[in-house]
């Protein structure tokens, strides 16, 4: 019977796998068979960006009461979470919705007896060394008196290795004493590289450090190999969807509708151009004017060169090329190869936008 059981389970697994791949190919097929929608994002009548930003601050939350009840229901799990931490496990919270408020509530109501450091992983860049220094200082306060006396190098001059070694070897009087590190979005952009994850894993394996982390990305577990996940972090998973809006977490993401709008590009282009030399600006103007008068074709480089030379904007091809490189780096200019094999330059902006840009820089 057992045998059969397992077989069935295996089959189920297989079926799941099959289901998954089938779904993937169905989705692929759907794209190719159904005629790809030709609609452009620019077809949406996007309101002014300013208005959009204002509106996004005014969005009415939905299900506020239900969410409050849900959050409240998680408080009954606080003792269990505390027990897990005290027994040496780390907590990993996942599920849809911002878990920032939940975790900080847990930390400030239940972990009062322990020091708590919060890392905001959703930010773009995090200096882990500073965090380690702060942790080392916190832990240092709890150290055995005699060890405290011995002269030590100040933490901020020590290397990552030294700091981790210190944290790893620190002995504290009370065995049930630890510093809790809350990491919002351990899968966030600032912590996403493998080196940082390795450091975090090593931090997590220190005797007097406990981690409470949250993830939002469905593939976040791929960061960790088995050693990290099972022995260093030692996660206990808790599924705690909150449905709270990702206010702070989403702050650094561009608004998708604002992203491609014309006004946006105008501003971008104008800012870049203003930072360039007057000659470079003039070269751009030549190109822009040509494009306005010949909207459907690009400008051959040789033509551009001769016009610029006539106007004393450049003296040789090298100077022109350096200007063009600058433009290309900022995506102000693109090269297209035309049917006759000639490289043509064009500016990836609409005529309207181009006129606005010219106005801005003149």
């Amino acid at each position: 019977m057992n045998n059969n059981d397992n077989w069935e389970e295996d089959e189920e697994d297989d079926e799941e796998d099959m289901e998954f791949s089938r779904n993937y190919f169905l989705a692929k097929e759907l794209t190719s068979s159904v005629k790809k929608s030709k609609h452009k994002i620019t077809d949406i009548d996007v309101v002014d960006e300013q208005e959009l930003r204002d509106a996004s601050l005014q969005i009415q939350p939905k299900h506020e009461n239900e969410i409050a009840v849900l959050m409240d229901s998680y408080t009954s799990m606080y003792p269990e979470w505390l027990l897990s931490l005290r027994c040496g496990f780390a907590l990993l919270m996942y599920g849809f919705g911002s878990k920032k408020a939940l975790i900080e509530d847990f930390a400030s109501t239940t972990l009062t007896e322990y020091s708590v450091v919060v890392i905001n992983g959703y930010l773009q860049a995090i200096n882990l060394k500073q965090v380690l220094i702060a942790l080392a200082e916190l832990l240092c306060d709890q150290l055995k008196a005699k060890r405290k006396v011995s002269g030590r190098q100040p933490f901020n001059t020590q290397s990552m290795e030294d700091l981790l070694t210190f944290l790893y070897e620190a002995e504290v009087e009370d065995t049930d004493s630890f510093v809790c590190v809350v990491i919002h979005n351990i899968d966030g952009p600032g912590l996403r590289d493998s080196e940082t994850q390795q450091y975090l894993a090593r931090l997590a394996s220190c005797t007097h450090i406990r981690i409470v982390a949250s993830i939002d990305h469905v593939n976040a577990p791929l960061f960790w190999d088995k050693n990290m996940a099972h022995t260093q972090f030692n996660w206990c998973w808790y599924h705690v969807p909150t449905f709270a809006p990702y206010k702070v977490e989403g702050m650094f993401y561009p608004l998708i509708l604002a992203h491609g709008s014309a006004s946006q590009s105008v501003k971008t282009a104008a800012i870049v151009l203003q930072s360039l030399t007057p000659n470079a600006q003039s070269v751009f103007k030549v190109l822009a004017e040509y494009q306005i008068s010949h909207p459907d074709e690009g400008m051959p480089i040789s033509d551009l060169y001769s016009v610029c030379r006539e106007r004393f904007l450049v003296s040789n091809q090298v100077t022109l090329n350096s200007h063009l490189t600058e433009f290309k780096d900022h995506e102000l200019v693109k090269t297209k190869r035309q049917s006759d094999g000639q490289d043509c330059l064009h500016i990836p902006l609409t005529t309207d936008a181009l006129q606005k840009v010219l106005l801005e820089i003149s």
Partner: protein
Amino acid sequence: MRKRDGGDLAQVTVTIRIPPLHSLVISRHNRANLLPALISEEERSSTTKPVATVFNRMAPSSPINTASQPPSTAENDIQPFFVLHKASHRRKDRTPVRQGKYRKRNEVSPELPQSSKKGEESTNEECDRRFCQQMQIEAFDIVWTKIESTIKDVLRDLNASVFNNIQQWVLEGYNTTRLVGEPSIAEATRSFPVLNNTTPGKLYTALVITRNIEFVDDIVTFEELGIFLKSHGCHVAMLSSMEFSLKNGIAGCLKALLREFLGGSFDQSADLSTLASWYREQDNYNKPLVLIVNDLERCCGSVLTDFILMLSEWVVKVPIILIFGVATTVDAPRNIFPSHALECLCPSTFMLVTPAERMDAIVVEVLVKHCTTFNIGHKVAQLLRNYFINQDGTVTSFIRALKVACLLHFSMEPLSLIHGRILVEDQDAKSGLSPETMSKYMDELPSYARNKMVDQTNKSMAEGLSELVTVQKLWSTVVLCLYEAGKYSRVRLLDLFCEALNQVLYPSRDSVCHTRDEKDHGLPSTNDPCQQYSILQSGGFICQIARRVRDLPPGKLDQLIDSWEKITADISEIHEKLKILQSSVSFKDGKSSRRSSKDISKRSVSKIIDKESRLSNLQAIAFLDDLVRNYLKPIEGMPFHEIFCFNNVEKLQLVLIGDPRRRIQVDLLDFHDILGCSCCNKSGKALLPSMHDSSIMYSLAQEHGDLINLHDWFQSFRTIVLQNTNKRKQKSKNTPSSKKRKEMNESGDQNEASIQARFCRGVTELQITGLVRMPSKRRPDFVQRIAFGI
């Protein structure tokens, strides 16, 4: 104010779009991170700087009720990190106080009701809770420490012979290396290698084949090896493949090596000569230096090659011996190193035990022989087995799963606290729970209630518990006997273990024996004596084992019976039965051997021998059958088993194996099940405007292929959000306050800007969860779906 802010933010986004400026932003961030205090200064001084404006922007976007929150919250949100609070000083004298309070409570408990003021009650409750948790932790610590040390011992025993071999080899290698040329003091203190002949020295290299796909288990093994060698007078350095990376380079490796041998005390310019002079020191000299690298295949070949070439030049002054963990085959070094590096190595091969062997040894000690009273139920066992065999395959994660099970057991079953105490002290007296509470919990145990109903004996708890222990002992003996027999048919212990725990099979085993009608089975009703044993009929692993025993050749059968004798030695009940079996078998053996010695070639004789040995095989089966029927009682059928046996497989699975990929999608698609709101459950699967924006959007995304056209997506979102607007207006049964809110909603929520903003936020949220990928430059109008199917 807001307007100006918004304008600034636009600039910020601008900067993010352009690569060079973008990197500028990052670098500014870094600076801001280094000096968090600077941010506010920057904020004040300049509003045009992109970063400053980003941070400036933050204040309005943080929760609307900023007033009710401490002002620092919004600021903290944008700090890379901050200290939420420091440990309160209360905890310093917490433990003794609690102990004291507890004692008091126990002594005074009858009088407590008299002084039941409200405040005191709540503090008492709090105190109880804390005390309870303290007890849980103690119990967990006691049980887990025991299990852990048992596992450690098991693994050490398993590895002992390999470790001894390696240590012998290290000594030999060291002595030979030294014989090659002992450097004179003058030579040894020079800061360049000794090169007395043109060929570089040979490095003794052990290739330890781990026979394991995963390296996690081996990390521990190699750590143990390091400790073992240290205790046998070697200097040991452990480096991992992370040190041997291109990024680290040879300098990084060297530094790591020095750190391992010398500790932290060396300056930045240190090189191998530092190591050589350290080795010359009195305490360090005359001991072999061993470098262990536990995952050879993951190292960067070129770095490791350089490192080896360097070491081989210094080998006279620094007699270092290498130990590599090899996960694949002995050929691995040949694939990694070029020939001139291979020439420097003098390899020997060692084999570690396989994960399966380790697993079996651990299961025997921890779960079958019960080093503690902690136990797992059938379903949990099956989960662990499937997890080990189908998904993970590492002993490490099996142990971890066991640890989590143990933790959950103590956190969920109040009576489990008895457990830890039973191990260390005598039973009830100090179990931490008063007898009254204990019996209260007892009554709640389903198994106890069941038992009470079935037989009205009302056994006392002590009896129940001692019976449980006895039955467990018998059970584990039977499992061990079966396992011993199973070794001949390659039945895995985990499979056997799961089957032995299965309560469903137990009663059938018990009753099948006599009631079976042979015709039903379609078997020719021969006079095959095997038919009478249920053990041969039931199917499954036990049956498999029994069948193998039936066909065992006599020599092996004797071996098996001998091993049974050892297992059953201190269980008199079973041992007696074994004695009977032994006497009958040995009697026949005696006879047959006598005969066979007369004339082996005669067929008839060999037939007789055959028949007789078959008879003894049958007797062995009868013995097994008897054991299985009478003693293989799964613990879950016993009263009080909840105290010792963890069986909440769902909970374990949740905590052990997170499944964010599936669950986050389910959260979005079936959010109603979680929130349980009254507004969204009316019309089955149809999308309602009251639903969560991200849920609506993700449900809509399901209808697209792997690319979602942003325009179409937005339009369908807009349609859903705007539908029923009129209907909602008609429904005016709501309370005035909610009506008012709705009106506000409509004015604020239904306009174009708001819908677009909601759409943008939905996309951002799905992007955070990783379910959609942003438009690429090639396809600016499409986002890409990442997940297909739940």
